[in-house]
């Protein structure tokens, strides 16, 4: 009995003393206080912006740098506030040792950004303002009811986001073993759309005191938005209802997971769970000696969570782009081209990121070494399969962009896409040899098993990747889309293909030289 009491005593001392009464805790609390003050200033700043923009319409996003700065502030705010407001993270944040700049998962942050991004930028500013104020709400003399409502709103919003992330992760885990994947994906998509439609229908009216000099933190709460519209309660109810709904779905999926895990391995990945792919038609156009490699590599791409997630994110970005265009094109027409460029760049950037980390099949890599495989053919087929899998997506992106602007841009967009794909593959072949990365079917793009290393070749590739479209866009800007542009572009494509072929042979000889090192690295991972 005495031993047991001593055990509990030690646990209490060890766990709580160190956690709550150490110098580290003190340091953590000081930092949090400073951060809180920062949040308040942040909220004040954005509150000011909301008011200022409403009274100075001529400033509305006309200045690109202004809008970029705004977007940056919003994104930073989302990260910081998501950190500080997550109840679970808050406790660990008290300790200096565990105080991290990004304790939330990247997936949560990105999901949050995407969800709030679907709302108009003005709403985002408002949401930002509300969330920012929560952090310092206690320190100000605001009414208890207002604070409670704001707190509930923020927490339900965060909980909602948490559940969405949880749901996405649960669904990702089910890839490869979930026969009714399509049903769940559609469910999420529809529920998301309905949420956004309801949100869009709410009346978001800002009526403010026009005397900016007398404007202060208290006046935010005297804004008529808190008194006139019912939107805040509607949003609160919406969040709660959706949270309940999503919680139910997550629970069902988790139970399903548990059932899967408890079943014997022979039923875990049964015949029905495998995505059967008939690729014979697709690969029939290629020479016999590389057909089997292409077939295998395509199967790997389609079965890998990492690449599926990358494709999924590209689709989300595309939907975001279309949404912005269809809903808000009238508001943003001045900066529309710049905005669309900013939105499309990540798609191409993601291409680079994905192919850059296009790794080797852990133990399967050994087969290339003892069999009569030609390493040049193996690399070539990896590149071809990447382009083949991306082909439908590139077509969809190109057609949608052409539909939004003009169909005269379709060949231009296709040409630039494929130029960039080839450049990306050219450099990623080298990067994957210098920094071998294992293909892992279960790993998603947000949780890498090994940290990325800086690669000079990759960096040069990235620069080429970014500069090339800028040069081509500049040529379009100067010469227009005509004979000159197509001549230059086709010549560029031709040169790039020749360089690619030369570099392909070089990367094959480099792979041969490094094969022993790569093999050892891969089998250790």
């Amino acid at each position: 009995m005495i031993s047991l009491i001593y055990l509990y005593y030690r646990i209490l001392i060890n766990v709580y003393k160190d956690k709550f009464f150490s110098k580290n805790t003190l340091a953590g609390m000081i930092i949090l206080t400073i951060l809180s003050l920062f949040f308040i200033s942040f909220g004040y700043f954005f509150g000011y912006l909301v008011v200022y923009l409403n009274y100075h319409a001529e400033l509305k996003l006309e200045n690109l740098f202004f809008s970029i700065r705004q977007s940056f502030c919003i994104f930073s705010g989302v990260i910081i506030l998501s950190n500080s407001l997550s109840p679970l993270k808050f406790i660990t944040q008290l300790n200096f040792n565990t105080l991290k700049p990004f304790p939330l998962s990247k997936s949560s942050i990105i999901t949050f950004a995407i969800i709030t991004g679907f709302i108009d930028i003005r709403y985002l500013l408002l949401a930002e303002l509300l969330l920012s104020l929560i952090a310092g709400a206690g320190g100000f003399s605001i009414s208890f009811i207002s604070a409670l409502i704001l707190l509930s709103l923020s927490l339900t919003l965060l909980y909602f986001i948490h559940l969405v992330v949880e749901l996405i992760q649960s669904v990702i885990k089910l890839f490869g073993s979930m026969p009714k994947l399509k049903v769940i994906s559609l469910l999420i998509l529809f529920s998301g759309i309905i949420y956004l439609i309801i949100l869009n229908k709410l009346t978001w009216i800002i009526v403010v005191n026009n005397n900016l000099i007398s404007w202060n933190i208290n006046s935010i709460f005297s804004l008529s938005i808190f008194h006139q519209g019912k939107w805040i309660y509607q949003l609160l109810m919406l969040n709660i209802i959706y949270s309940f709904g999503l919680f139910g779905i997550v629970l069902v999926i988790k139970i399903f997971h548990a059932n899967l895990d408890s079943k014997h391995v022979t039923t875990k990945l049964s015949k029905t769970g495998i995505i059967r792919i008939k690729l014979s038609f697709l690969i029939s156009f290629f020479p016999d000696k590389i057909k089997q490699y292409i077939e295998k590599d395509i199967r790997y791409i389609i079965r890998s969570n990492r690449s599926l997630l990358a494709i999924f994110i590209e689709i989300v970005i595309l939907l975001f782009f279309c949404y912005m265009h269809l809903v808000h094109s009238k508001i943003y027409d001045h900066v529309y081209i710049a905005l669309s460029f900013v939105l499309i760049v990540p798609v191409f950037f993601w291409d680079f990121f994905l192919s850059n980390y296009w790794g080797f099949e852990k133990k399967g890599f050994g087969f290339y070494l003892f069999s009569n495989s030609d390493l040049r053919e193996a690399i070539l087929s990896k590149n071809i399969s990447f382009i083949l899998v991306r082909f439908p997506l590139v077509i969809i992106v190109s057609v949608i962009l052409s539909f939004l602007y003009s169909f005269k841009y379709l060949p231009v967009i296709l040409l630039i896409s494929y130029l960039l794909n080839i450049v990306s593959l050219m450099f990623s072949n080298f990067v994957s040899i210098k920094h071998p990365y294992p293909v892992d079917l279960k790993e998603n793009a947000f949780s890498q098993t090994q940290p990325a290393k800086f690669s000079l070749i990759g960096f040069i590739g990235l620069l080429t990747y970014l500069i090339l479209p800028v040069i081509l866009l500049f040529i379009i800007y100067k010469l227009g889309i005509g004979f000159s542009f197509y001549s230059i572009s086709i010549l560029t494509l031709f040169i790039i293909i020749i360089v690619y072929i030369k570099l392909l042979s070089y990367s094959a000889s480099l792979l041969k030289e490094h094969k022993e090192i790569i093999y050892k690295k891969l089998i250790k991972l």
Partner: protein
Amino acid sequence: MIKIIDLSKNYNGLLALDKLTLSIPESSIFGFVGPNGAGKSTTLNILTGIILPTSGEIKILGYDLKKKSIDIKKRIGVIPEILALFDGLTGEEHLTFVGKVYGVKKNILPDRIKELLDFFDLTSAKDRLIESYSQGMRKKLAFAASIIHSPDVLFLDEPFENVDPISRKKMKEVLNKFKDKGKTVMITSHSLIELEDLCDEVAIINKGKIVFQSATKDIRSKIKDKITKETYQSLEEIFLDITKHDGIEKVKDLSWL
């Protein structure tokens, strides 16, 4: 069929193989036995082109491994230590891929795959991803993949480990059939007993050097002549004595047991 002359491998100052010389005739099954870290897998990895030797000469099927590696690789079958299976493919897809890489004719391949899957009781698992296979199933699949193109030489690293007795018997039958057709098999193992009923000849490797080599049927008599002890009860004792595995007697020091 396989000739190794003065083969050495140095891993950052650590000598894994020390001037190994070996000759394996055709139409034979050769056992390569040794404790962990003795150099068995290193030898096999060099012979199959997975890793490069530091020095030495290797001839397989009359070809020099340095100069004609692709010609050799077309005609050998391998089960490496790590099995080298593509976890993202199903069992059937893996065999199809391997068969196509080795150039097995399109009209023959499906039937051959079916026969192999049936023979190794893998038909019910043919549509499952390899990552879900048990160790024994993986080993059987690796074995099937190594023989799918009917190679002239087989290199097998611990092929019977984790395999059930029935499948082990089947694998041994396949190997005997190979030998009868004039082909050569080289097998590594930790256990001399495991190979006794299968191999024509065995070599024991320890610390990168061959310490004993004999026709399997002559092992006991050869040991008797060489070492003064009168009799050996088992091959296990012979193996331990040859590899000078001292330290076993230290079990006495664990007095608390």
